[in-house]
């Protein structure tokens, strides 16, 4: 399946885009997603365990991603 990964702030700057298209097998997890993008240009800015949101909620590495899910990579937050 093809998943669109949303990027923000410093991550969008590093990858040079506000979203990446990532090919993943069915039943893939957040951990699989992170492995899949680890070779992309810009991925060097990511911490070891970057925050990922699935459908606008924080996800675990074991969270499964389904086709059509809204998936986002969340840089360290700095609100307030």
């Amino acid at each position, binding site marked *: 399946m093809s998943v669109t990964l*949303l990027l*923000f*702030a*410093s991550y969008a*700057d*590093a990858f040079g885009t506000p979203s990446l298209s990532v090919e993943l097998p069915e039943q893939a997890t957040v951990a699989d997603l992170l492995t899949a993008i680890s070779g992309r240009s810009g991925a*060097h*800015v990511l*911490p070891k365990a970057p925050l990922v*949101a699935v459908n*606008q*909620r*924080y996800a675990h590495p074991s969270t499964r991603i389904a086709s059509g899910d*809204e998936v*986002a990579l*969340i*840089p*360290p*937050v*700095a*609100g*307030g």
Partner: protein
Amino acid sequence: MTAVGRLTNEPIDASSLAVEAGSPSFGAILVFLGVVRDINDGRSVTAIDYSAYEAMAAILLGDIAREGAERHGPANVVIVHRLGELGLQEASVGIAVANAHRDDAYQLSRWCIDELKRRVPIWKREHYTDGTREWVDPTGAAVEASR
């Protein structure tokens, strides 16, 4: 009971928030404003631009308002975070809480701003007097990498 969180592009007004949180049964209202200040980590700041994963940030601001009102209620809670470019002394966040008594109001207000800083997907890029701009990473580690 009022327990709401939202994003805005407009200036944040403390009086309006206080009115929105107020209730005849609550005797203590506390309004926290986080404002842009001129120095951060020793660097001279001229402005900050705030951005967010807007759909998710709005959900989490509402979560925090509701959870806070449950933990330290009965209470009304209104949380507003501003996005866009803000100059010195402009408020980026406003949190108004109202409780029967002040003890709870202080605890609730403090809990809300701490949670907001901990979990809401909002980012800020500081503008410095030397013309450079930089994303702020409160965790420290990634700042070097993003320079």
